[in-house]
């Protein structure tokens, strides 16, 4: 076989839910076809109720497909075998309250068949990696939302899967945690993992995804690489010191004389999340150990697409 097996291949997936006793059906996913290649970070976007989580649950064999064919590394998704190389973080995750963080990750590691010899080291590594080592001896029942997402990521990664499926990993996580989560995802990508992530916070997805698909009412609306979809190669933003009106006119004249146009002039503003990131300390946060690089600003400078010459420079600290 020369063509590599895609990490996920979905062909004509349809999923109906019986929502009333009379058998009225609700079509949550409608004839969806998607392919996620190995090594990509793939973003699944869409408004609430568009069928993102349903699609993911079918991929993981938690729901059966009404029609269509779903394969994970070439294995049909209803087979146990297909889940061997998959880590999953459910949306709004909730874990055994009565276990400590370590115990929880250890439990899932054993379920996934991590060899006993590596167990201890592996659990510790992955808990450190998500930055939760300080809180890992506490009962999961006492965790905050963001900490639950982190421990959820740890349990999804503990058996070193090739494919990681994250359903809204940043829901309820603060901007600092979100930025860290994005870094973690980028690190996973560097390790050659395939990541499928859903979100409706578009700016975040933009920072990490290679390809995105947008669902609406269970139907695929667009799919493609980020460059294809939102790249604007024909425009640029220049950021300069404040100019008096006369200079601006002179500049405009100079541009026009060379056959260019000055499309817009705006006052750049710092984005609120960047302000937040620069003011809030990282590290002692949420029991996080600051294990994830300590002063990294997300590489987002997400262009504001509505304003052609808008700029969003990093705030001067």
């Amino acid at each position: 076989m020369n063509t590599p097996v895609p990490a996920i291949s979905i062909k004509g997936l349809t999923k109906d839910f019986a929502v009333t006793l009379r058998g009225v059906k609700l079509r949550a996913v409608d004839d969806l076809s998607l392919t996620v290649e190995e090594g990509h970070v793939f973003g699944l976007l869409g408004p609430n109720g568009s069928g993102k989580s349903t699609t993911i649950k079918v991929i993981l064999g938690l729901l059966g497909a009404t029609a269509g064919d779903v394969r994970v590394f070439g294995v049909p998704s209803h087979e146990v075998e297909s889940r061997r190389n998959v880590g999953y973080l459910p949306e709004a995750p909730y874990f055994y309250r009565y276990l400590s963080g370590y115990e929880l990750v250890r439990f899932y590691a054993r379920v996934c068949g991590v060899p006993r010899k590596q167990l201890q080291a592996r659990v510790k590594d992955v808990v450190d990696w998500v930055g939760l080592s300080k809180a890992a001896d506490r009962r999961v029942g006492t965790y905050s939302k963001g900490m639950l997402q982190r421990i959820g990521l740890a349990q999804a990664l503990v058996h070193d899967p090739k494919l990681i499926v994250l359903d809204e990993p940043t829901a309820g996580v603060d901007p600092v945690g979100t930025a860290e989560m994005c870094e973690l995802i980028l690190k996973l990508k560097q390790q050659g993992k395939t990541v499928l992530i859903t979100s409706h916070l578009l700016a975040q997805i933009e920072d990490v995804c290679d390809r995105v698909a947008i669902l609406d009412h269970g139907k695929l609306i667009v799919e493609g690489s980020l460059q294809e979809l939102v790249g604007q190669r024909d425009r640029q933003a220049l950021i300069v010191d404040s100019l008096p009106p006369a200079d601006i006119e002179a500049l405009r004249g100079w541009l026009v004389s060379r056959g260019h146009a000055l499309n817009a002039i705006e006052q750049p503003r710092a984005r609120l999340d960047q302000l937040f990131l620069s003011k809030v300390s990282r590290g002692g946060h949420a029991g996080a150990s600051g294990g994830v690089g300590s002063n990294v600003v997300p590489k987002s400078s997400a262009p504001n697409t509505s304003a052609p010459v808008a700029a969003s420079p990093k705030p001067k600290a």
Partner: protein
Amino acid sequence: MSAVSVPFSFSRLALIASNTFLEAVRQRLFNFLLLLAVGLVASAQFFRDFNFGSSELKFIADFGFGALVFFGSALTITTTAQLFFSEIENRTALTLLAKPIWRAEFVFGKFVGVFAVIGVFCALTIGLMMALLWHREGQLMTIDPEAFASGRIVRYGDLFIVGVLQWLKFGVLSSIVLLIATFSNSNLYTVVTGFFALVICHLQYLARDSWSNVDNLMLRVLVQVLGLIFPNFQLFNLGDEIGQGAALDPLLAGRVAVYAVVYIAVIGGLAVYSFRNREI
């Protein structure tokens, strides 16, 4: 492409079982069980100034077993439903079943965990009851040595066997509740239906007795079939003669135990079948 399938694993089953047991421990269920067992046995002691002589011992044994049957049944139904639905309602089943595990491992893992919890309750109650009987028997022996001329009359070994049989019966009940839970949507529905099944299992022998002489063949067959589908819990009451010195027939006890194990296996299999395609 490696097509090695994931084999059924007893160690994963044991892992799920021990996690279920741990949940019961950490949710302080055992504090309650201990309290219950002590309360039950202490209230048997409360009747001790009846001073029936050796029949007082039978009273204690009967009372103890009555309490075991009653509270054990209630406990079995509620814990089975609770420990199963805590996974579904807290959505922890979502994470667990997305791992490479068989649904059969999950269902039987839950069963074994619950069965162990009930085992602890049975052991506590029977153990305390035996201690009380031993203590009281010792007292009576000094008061009325003639009645105990040939030594102790309570057969502690039989008592233990009857306790084990009750435990197996609760196992059958637990598997029935688990089967109901696999297709039911709520804890409450499961508990109510479970109690209903309990009553049928206890009373089905009445139906079998009174309908077996009916002329209508169809009806007779129907009653026989129902009698097969629902296990007969009356079979497990071998403890009536204990305390009076009558010996337990070990062959009968063995047959009842096999009866229970067969029902657990078959009903458990049905539960796995029904859970196989459940949407989580």
